[in-house]
């Protein structure tokens, strides 16, 4: 298996409090890996170490390695801006910018200077919207505010925005937790579709969702990686008693 991301002995601290303990994990290319676990287990924190979003927290500190395409992203001199372009992120609450639909998608292209001219920009925006399965719904109102879209559409817009900068990896932090079942289904179908071109890591509270979309599942508890296995194994015959108790709802 070809590892896209390889995490080695990762510890994470908020100030003096340790939030992640000695985590090692291999994420294969073109697969969907789901992180599950009870609230506060560290799965979101861990996800955010993969594109250094935790850098924005002044008291956070990391030790260990996160190797993406052979390079440790925590090595000194790492270009965080380039890293985040390569490792895109979609958040729990859809967070479109206070701009038009077009400008939301164009923003990342523009700041990274990816486009050559206006026509190229239009093409890229359209492609991103198509890839996010949103084009048909918004093509007639690209210049209207992104806030006019429904929750599910806003979330797909955020996915399109992330796709527009041509990342290799997409991190999704509970991308469907605020959506209704139909919008959720669309996001899930999209995740499976995007797997062909991207490596996807998704944090979810919804175990059925993890079961439906992911190839591998990692179960976290109290900042520790309890089990990491192929999803079908995880949901039919987990190795760890803790995992079994969690996925069968035995935690009171």
């Amino acid at each position, binding site marked *: 298996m070809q590892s896209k991301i390889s995490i080695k002995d990762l510890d994470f601290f908020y100030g003096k409090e340790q939030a992640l303990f000695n985590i090692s994990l291999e994420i294969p290319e073109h697969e969907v890996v789901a992180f599950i676990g009870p609230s506060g287990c560290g799965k979101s924190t861990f996800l955010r170490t993969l594109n250094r979003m935790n850098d924005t927290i002044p008291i956070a500190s990391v030790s260990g390695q996160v190797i993406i395409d052979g390079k440790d992203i925590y090595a000194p001199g790492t270009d965080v801006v380039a890293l985040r372009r390569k490792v895109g992120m979609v958040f729990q609450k859809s967070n479109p910018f206070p701009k038009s639909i077009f400008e939301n998608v164009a923003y990342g292209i523009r700041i990274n200077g990816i486009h050559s001219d206006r026509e190229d920009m239009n093409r890229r925006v359209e492609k991103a919207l198509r890839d996010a399965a949103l084009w048909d719904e918004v093509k007639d109102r690209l210049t209207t505010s992104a806030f006019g879209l429904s929750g599910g559409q806003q979330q797909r817009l955020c996915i399109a925005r992330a796709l527009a900068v041509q990342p290799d990896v997409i991190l999704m932090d509970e991308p469907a937790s605020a959506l209704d079942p139909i919008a959720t289904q669309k996001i899930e179908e999209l995740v499976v579709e995007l797997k062909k071109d991207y490596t996807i890591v998704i944090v979810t509270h919804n*175990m059925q969702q993890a079961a439906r979309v992911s190839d591998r599942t990692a179960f976290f508890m109290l900042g520790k990686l309890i089990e990491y296995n192929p999803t079908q194994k995880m*949901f039919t*015959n*987990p190795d760890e008693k803790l995992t079994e*108790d969690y996925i*069968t709802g035995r935690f009171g």
Partner: protein
Amino acid sequence: MEHRIIDQQLDLLRDKILLLGGATEAAVNRAMQALVERDTELAKRVLDEDKVIDQMELEIDQMSIEILALQQPAAHDLRFVISVAKITPILERIADHASSIAEAAIVLNNEPQIKNYVDFPIMAKTAAEMLRSALDAFTSEDSQLSREVIKRDKEIDSSYKRVFNELLEMMIDNPSSTTGAAHLLFVAKHLERIGDYVKDICELNVYLTEAAFIKHSKHS
């Protein structure tokens, strides 16, 4: 720490499959008893009770589907429901074989006894013991016991070969006994099939406890 809605339903499902197992076991035992002791009344009772067994199968099927659809079980819970759903029709088929034996008994009881039933009770005893052990193994989730039961299928197979040859010789030596012998041959075949089914149940037991598929593999 746990008080899950699904637990109640799984317990109920377990009760139902054990009842079905018990009824199937009783049907096999009674059918053989009817044959050996030439008890036509008992044979008729076996045929009557098959309807009850069919009804039980239906209920378990419905309940399994309901649990899968509404509770979305995972891991061991999932394997349990799947095992129950797969064992149920097997038990029902075993009961069907018991009915067929009972029907043969009714025919044979009207004919003069053509043979001392020596091998039959042994074969029937082995099959009944296997079935009982298989159900015990299911209840206690004892995969070791299941593997032992699977090995015993060979005993039935060899008994069947012996009975088959014996009956064949009989038909050649004494053509007038052909009808009776043919019925007996079918009974032997039914017992042999029951052995195979019990083996299937044991394989599902191993799946339930170890999540391992040992069907179609040599190293059982």
